[in-house]
């Protein structure tokens, strides 16, 4: 048998081996981009963060790529890409363009303006992460799709990449965002010709309400150039930003007038305890949770607020723990397409609610709200506000969990446990010994239904999900070994699988109810505001005759009852 190319082949093999080894080494020292983190954005986007040595002719920054998914085909597609930067008190319009890719370097003037706002706070960059807000508008025929994307980042990374502070291997230099427009799954808007009205009417919502300042949060910073193309047309985006500045509750308990009348002498104890990084997620009207718009290290020691209904508290209201001086924004984004001859067309609109800023490691003691505080604002104000401003409720319906109830029956006083066990401890308050029935919600992640930025990818993510699942069971070791042997590229995954070191450590909130006697009638519901506002905050709602919202039916999942007294 004669071997093909008997002399040349070994030479080629040796050359290829040398090249492979060089690439391995280059990759291992971050000389080429290496992913160090990845975040999934809803079901329609992914942000990947790459550490790298400077690559010639590629400025460090944000790169947006747009892909069209139609059936099994995934290909780059042109779309109108519009980028905003979140600042502590508002949003700054950074860049726009019509293309399948848009690069926004960190040294973009408008982005630097927003970064300057963060730097001027004087808070160490490691204490918090902010985000960019990206809107993608894709048009096909007379249909259009607008995707909102939230891209978390750290101001410190940008300053390091720009050489303004000490460079480091392990911080991202390039942020690549892949947006997936799945025309089979996402609902389009209809493109319609309109007459553009030049005058914008002030909706008259700006002012002070319930201790909140509501203001226009589109910062009057530098503006990007209008995007024009030939033949002459323009994409005209408008963004209305309503800023809400005030206190941001982390946990609260609300009692109705029925409770005041029926349950005189009841002791209420609201305790909270956690330390670590808290994520505030952005919510969108059409796409739900968009991921974390702001995160900061926060620290609450074990704290509790305890009082007696009827003597210390005599009217319906709420007690709450909160952050002071926080800012959240409702951004309404609309795009028009203006052709030279054809006139303007309406492309669609989307609304995003996001937290812009919460002071790190800053909290305030429990405070009462008797109808003019932030909890009242939650129940009544925010939805009303968005309806008034945008003409429809910007925020989703609430999630209420029916938790537990004390009921007085012909057989005596009973405790019904519907959503997990209700513990009991003994406490002395005001010189009196009480049995305190405790409803404890677990870790921030499970209780709020939010987690640290979810690791994963939208496409080809099956295997990755499996890997992540194994890793999260704390048994990644042999798997990582295996990965080590199938190619060094896989190493980067091993890095991604390591949970962030800043995750929350102690995380629990407890509502204690004391002074339960024969005749007590109390229904405890839990409202998870993360589903409503994207805020990791929730409240216990106490009613005397039924669960919150008077549900016609409810499921008692845990379904345990205890005879009291």
């Amino acid at each position, binding site marked *: *048998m004669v*071997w093909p190319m*008997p002399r040349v*082949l*070994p*030479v080629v*093999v*040796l050359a*290829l*081996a*040398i*090249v*492979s*080894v060089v690439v*391995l080494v*280059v990759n*291992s020292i971050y000389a*080429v*981009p*290496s*992913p160090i983190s*990845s975040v999934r954005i809803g079901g329609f986007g992914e942000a*990947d963060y*790459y550490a790298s040595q400077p690559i010639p002719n*590629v400025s460090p920054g944000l790169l947006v790529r747009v892909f069209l998914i139609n059936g099994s085909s995934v*290909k*780059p597609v042109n779309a109108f890409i519009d980028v905003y930067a979140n600042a502590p008190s508002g949003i700054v319009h950074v860049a726009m363009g019509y293309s*399948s*890719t848009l*690069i926004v370097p960190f040294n973009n003037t408008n982005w630097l303006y927003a970064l300057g706002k963060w730097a001027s706070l004087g808070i160490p960059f490691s204490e918090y992460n902010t985000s960019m807000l990206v809107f993608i508008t894709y048009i096909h025929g007379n249909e259009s799709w607008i995707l909102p994307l939230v891209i978390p980042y750290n101001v410190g990374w940008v300053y390091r990449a720009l050489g303004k502070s000490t460079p480091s291997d392990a911080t991202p230099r390039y942020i*690549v965002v892949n947006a997936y427009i799945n025309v089979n799954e996402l609902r389009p808007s209809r493109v319609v010709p309109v007459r553009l009205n030049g005058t914008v009417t002030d909706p008259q919502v700006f002012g002070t309400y319930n201790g909140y300042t509501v203001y226009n949060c589109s910062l009057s910073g530098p503006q990007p150039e209008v995007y024009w193309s030939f033949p002459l047309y323009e994409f005209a985006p408008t963004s209305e930003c309503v800023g809400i500045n005030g206190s941001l509750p982390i946990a609260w308990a609300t009692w109705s007038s029925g409770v005041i009348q029926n349950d005189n002498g009841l002791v209420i104890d609201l305790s909270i305890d956690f330390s670590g990084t808290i994520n505030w997620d952005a919510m969108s009207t059409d796409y739900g949770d968009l991921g974390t718009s702001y995160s900061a290290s926060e620290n609450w020691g074990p704290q509790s607020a305890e009082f007696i209904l009827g003597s210390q508290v005599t009217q319906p209201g709420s007690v709450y723990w909160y952050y002071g001086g926080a800012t959240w924004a409702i951004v309404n984004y609309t795009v028009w397409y203006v052709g030279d001859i054809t006139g303007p067309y309406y492309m669609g609109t989307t609304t995003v609610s996001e937290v812009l800023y919460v002071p790190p490691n800053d909290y305030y003691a429990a405070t009462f709200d008797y109808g003019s505080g932030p909890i009242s604002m939650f129940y009544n104000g925010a939805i009303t506000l968005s309806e008034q401003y945008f003409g429809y409720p910007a925020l989703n319906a609430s999630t209420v969990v029916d938790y537990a109830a004390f009921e007085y029956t012909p057989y005596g006083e009973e405790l019904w446990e519907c959503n997990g066990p209700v513990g009991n401890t003994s406490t002395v308050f005001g010189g009196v010994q009480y049995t305190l029935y405790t409803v404890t919600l677990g870790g921030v992640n499970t209780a709020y239904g939010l987690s640290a930025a979810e*690791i994963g*990818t939208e*496409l*080809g*993510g*099956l*295997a*990755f999900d*499996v*890997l992540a*699942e*194994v890793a999260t*069971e704390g*048994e990644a*070791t*042999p*798997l*990582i*070994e*295996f990965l080590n042997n*199938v*190619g*060094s*590229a*896989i*190493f*980067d*995954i091993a890095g*991604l699988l390591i949970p962030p070191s800043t995750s929350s450590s102690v995380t629990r909130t407890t509502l204690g109810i004391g002074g339960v006697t024969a005749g007590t009638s109390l229904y405890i519901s839990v409202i998870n505001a993360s589903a409503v506002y994207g805020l990791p905050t929730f409240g216990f709602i106490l009613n005397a005759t039924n669960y919150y919202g008077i549900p016609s039916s409810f499921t008692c999942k845990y379904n345990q009852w205890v005879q009291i007294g």
Partner: protein
Amino acid sequence: MNVKSLFWFFVGFVFVNFASSLWLLLSSVLTITPIPLPYWLLYTPGNIVTAGIIVAALMLALYTYLGVALVLNKMNRGFIPITMVIAFTIGITLLLVRQAIPALVILVIAYVMLIGTYIVITSVTTSRTSKALWGVATIILALMPLILIGGGLAVINYIRYMAITEQAMAIMASAVEAWRLGVEQ
């Protein structure tokens, strides 16, 4: 011993590693440059996993070839790579059907068999350089899990460098052996 069969194993080993390195280099640099790219060329975690699975499949095919070639040459140690391939295949299948615990047990066996395979390769190489490189690679491969278990995730960077060293040695050892088998015999 029919050296021709092993020649193609070593050539294949280098080619597969080269192809994955090339994809890695091209995709990592192109991904951050503002030019439109097909989705599969993006250096995203999902694609990296896909590439890893393809590379793993090709490597397993090569090890199967190695095992069969050895067995056909009346060398029973060829059953070690064959066992390793079977164990890895079962382990990955279990992972895909989300049977994490049995998968891990099988993958640990597969890993031990992989170390065995390296020892087998070390024993059948004909060049002294190649034998030395495979030998050191085997030792690194055997040490990595011990160090990781002892040091936890804090030593992940050392493990990373060890694995890169191990891989570079295996690639060079294969090239040297292919050279020896192809040119000198």
